[in-house]
């Protein structure tokens, strides 16, 4: 339904992505701050002009049309409900602009407010609505114009954690009913997992990975995604079940790891070559360049070198210790940097303090490799 190539050039930034969305599909644009995902969304909306590329809706080019003439509906991060109009008038605004009579548009607005569960708040002003209520009005307002393309800019970001759960579920339900194309920008992985049919990961103005959420989560291809889904991620060259890890980080050929990437889930610091190298045994048999990923929970820590079966074993130094939900996440430095989740009891028993030398073991069966 939507077939686009979005190129936006700014003084210090360039966005160049291809984005296709099928009818009824929900695509989530995921990425770190400054990646360009909001710019892409605004370009689809017509609020940002394209420097190049095109946007085709059912074959018809719309990149030259101004925002008011595109068949879109948009939900903004701050909702942007018109403060001088009631909830009903806000929702009726769009249909009215499209030529509907005042009476008909108000009727339609009432229907939509009922559908999002806010029927009795028709005359309330936006200033008196709670965050969750405002979000629902914003959604109703965008859907009331029967858009062919629905755009959502971090729709749940302004909500507190509790409200977010409820609203996410409702949003999922409404998106399911929506028959056009939907593009959603988020940096909350849970939003992406729950709401999207397909994930498009954008970093530095380019698409670095896309696919169904579960596939992306299982096989992250960049440090950012890995961090998002909480995996340790590395690149290497596979030969059967053995993978020789590079001194280069995932996330793009040959790019040195940033400070951020260097911590959790990233691989090696600053592109330094790895003398001797580390070889990991992995569950799958692969050949050629691969990503290797394993969850922190797959790493076991020992005070002294264990005997027995673990095929992946190395000596490491404790870099840091932090709470992580019910368990404790230990950051290990050494031949490879990795995060390991252990119980609090284990921390005490092993006396895990920064600087302590320990042994880390990883079961091959829990270490996954997939083509890069």
């Amino acid at each position, binding site marked *: 339904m939507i077939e686009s190539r979005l190129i936006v050039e700014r003084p210090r930034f360039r966005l160049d992505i291809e984005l296709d969305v099928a009818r009824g599909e929900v695509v989530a644009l995921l990425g770190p701050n400054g990646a360009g995902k909001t710019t892409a969304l605004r370009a689809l909306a017509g609020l940002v002009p394209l420097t190049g590329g095109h946007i085709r809706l059912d074959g018809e080019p719309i990149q030259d049309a101004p925002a008011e003439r*595109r068949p879109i509906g948009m939900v903004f991060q701050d909702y942007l409900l*018109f403060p001088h109009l009631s909830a009903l008038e806000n929702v009726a605004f769009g249909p009215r602009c499209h030529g509907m009579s005042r009476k008909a548009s108000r009727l339609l607005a009432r229907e939509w407010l009922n559908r999002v569960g806010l029927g009795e708040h028709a005359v309330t002003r936006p200033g008196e609505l709670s965050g969750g209520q405002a979000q629902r009005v914003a959604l109703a307002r965008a859907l009331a114009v029967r858009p062919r393309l629905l755009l959502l800019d971090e729709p749940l970001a302004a909500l507190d954690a509790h409200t977010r759960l409820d609203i996410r579920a409702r949003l999922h339900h409404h998106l399911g009913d929506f028959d056009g194309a939907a593009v959603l920008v988020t940096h909350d992985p849970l939003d992406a997992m729950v709401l999207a049919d397909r994930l498009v990961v954008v970093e530095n103005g380019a698409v670095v990975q896309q696919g169904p959420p579960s596939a992306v989560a299982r096989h992250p291809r960049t440090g950012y995604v890995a961090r998002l889904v909480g995996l340790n991620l590395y690149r290497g060259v596979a030969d059967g079940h053995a993978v020789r890890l590079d001194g280069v980080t995932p996330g793009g050929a040959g790019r040195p790891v940033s400070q951020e990437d260097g911590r959790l889930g990233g691989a090696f610091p600053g592109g330094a070559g790895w003398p001797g190298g580390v070889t990991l045994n992995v569950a799958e048999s692969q050949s050629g360049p691969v990503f290797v990923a394993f969850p922190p929970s797959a790493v076991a820590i020992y005070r002294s070198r264990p005997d027995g079966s673990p095929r992946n074993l190395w000596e490491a130094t404790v870099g840091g210790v932090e709470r992580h939900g019910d368990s404790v996440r230990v950051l290990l430095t050494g031949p490879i940097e990795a995060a390991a989740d252990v119980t609090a009891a284990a921390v005490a028993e092993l006396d895990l303090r920064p600087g302590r030398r320990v042994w880390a073991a990883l079961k091959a069966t829990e270490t996954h490799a997939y083509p890069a």
Partner: protein
Amino acid sequence: MGAAHRTAGRMPWVLTVPAVGGLVFLILPLAGLLVRAPWSTMGERLAEPRVLEALRLSLVTATLATAICLVLGVPLAWLLARGNLPGRRLLRALVTVPLVLPPVVGGVALLLVLGRNGLVGRRLHEAFGFSLPFTTAGVVVAEAFVAMPFLVISVEGALKAADSRFEEAAATLGASRWRVFSRITLPLVAPGVSAGAVLCWARALGEFGATITFAGNFPGTTQTMPLAVYLALETDPEAAIVLSLVLLAVSVAVLAGLRGRWVGAS
């Protein structure tokens, strides 16, 4: 120390002195008028037809001038606040010219352009046999000229402070540029527009120099209250005081009536 007991809203005592001083400074002349007014003859003076005539003329012309300023000034303010013109800074400076120009000079300038022999007025006269000086319309033009900057500056400020993202949201909902302006932008800056309009009206009401220079002085047609007061001052100061008090009373009544509006949306 007393500091611990002070609440956030109380004025530091050191400011009360200049504040009271400022108040006294502004009110003293008014007090003078009230004290020296000829209260004994007030009744018959007020009944004089020329008093009501001048008052009516003042109120009508000031209101018409404000209407003109709104129609021309709000779009101009939008242009200055949001437009992407290259010479915007210069334009903004030009708009404030009537503020710094002595009103009489403004009146002369208007004569040179719109007078019977003026650059533009000449064509008007040739085509329609009509010229603005000495007409009530001329009074409205003179008042609009001096009062417009007040409106433009107020509205420009309000537009600059307004959040333009609401306009983006409206565009995504299909609103044409006109609808965005009339349904979203304007209502959101309404307090600023009201404040500007009130300032504009008050300025127009009190205008003297440009009015008498451009439109002249003729009772019923162009003699507004300020003109009547000035001429009365020549021979009959008590009449001048009476006229001044009438104008003051009416102005205060109108402004007080708009009180809730002109200090912002309450």
